[in-house]
């Protein structure tokens, strides 16, 4: 099972189209995509516009690998579940998001070994072709780093000190 998601806010037809075409060519039938308010209607993969959080979690849990835009919601969900995640960043110049921040995020997190990145449709299709090589980074815990929690706690409970 491959779970594809564009996140809760906007469509990402460029990515969905690439996955759809790949599924059509490769004959892969176990793909489910959450496509947002899309203009492109997939022909080869099961899809839905939106998923509420419990259904989203269910789909993600059932997946062998998650394919997503480079949004932190999708990435953190995959990391907490210990799922391999292949991301394709949205581009600002194509108005897929407000700027190119996803490109920088994807590159940094890929350097840290947290995600596998495909920069464009071509690379995405190529990576989908050898999906078994996309492995998980190792599950992360449910909460932020202790140092960050402590810093925030210091302001919430200023008198307790540390």
């Amino acid at each position, binding site marked *: 099972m491959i779970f594809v998601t564009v996140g809760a806010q906007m469509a990402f037809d460029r990515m969905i189209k690439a996955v759809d075409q790949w599924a059509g060519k490769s004959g892969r039938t176990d793909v489910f995509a959450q496509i947002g308010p899309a203009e492109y209607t997939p022909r080869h993969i099961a899809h839905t516009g939106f998923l509420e959080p419990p259904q989203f979690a269910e789909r993600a849990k059932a997946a062998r690998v998650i394919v997503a835009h480079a949004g932190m919601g999708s990435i953190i969900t995959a990391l907490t579940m210990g799922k391999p995640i292949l991301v394709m960043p949205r581009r600002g110049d194509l108005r897929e998001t407000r700027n190119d921040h996803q490109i920088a995020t994807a590159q940094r997190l890929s350097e840290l070994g947290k995600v596998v990145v495909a920069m464009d449709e071509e690379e995405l299709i190529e990576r989908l072709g050898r999906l078994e090589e996309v492995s998980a980074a190792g599950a992360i815990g449910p909460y932020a780093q202790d140092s960050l929690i402590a810093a925030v706690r210091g302001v919430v409970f*200023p008198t307790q000190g540390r």
Partner: protein
Amino acid sequence: MAGHQSTKQTPRVLAIASGGGHWVQLLRLRPAFEGARVTYVSVRPAYASDVPGQRFIAINDATRWDKVGLAKMAFKLLWIMLRVRPNVVISTGAAPGYFAIRLGKLLGARTIWLDSIANVEEMSMTGMLVKDKATLWLTQWPHLAAENGPQCHGSVL
């Protein structure tokens, strides 16, 4: 507020974020609020299921281009702030957090801005706008921390 068990020592926290990644990152800070009375605010009613047993309020979402939506959001937040009277306002972004931090500061609350981990190259625009309003102004990337800039105490990962 009648019916609530609270003492002067229990801080009231307003934890607020817009949808998707901002909300997911806010949830990862939950241990920091343990022992406080938390009101969560975000933009989708379904998110209430992420914080069972806690007070959750849904507001409308709006981007910086949607002036009417932003005005509606600001008024709703003012109303929430006056009811909750938070001692602490914390946000991971974006537009709702901007208004909440500003209003919180105005009402004398301590304020925490944690810029999203997605902002790798510079602080977000909303993050920059609350620079002088935040008691704690945080980036999640060590290379963005600076003496007169944001602090870094780690990330949500």
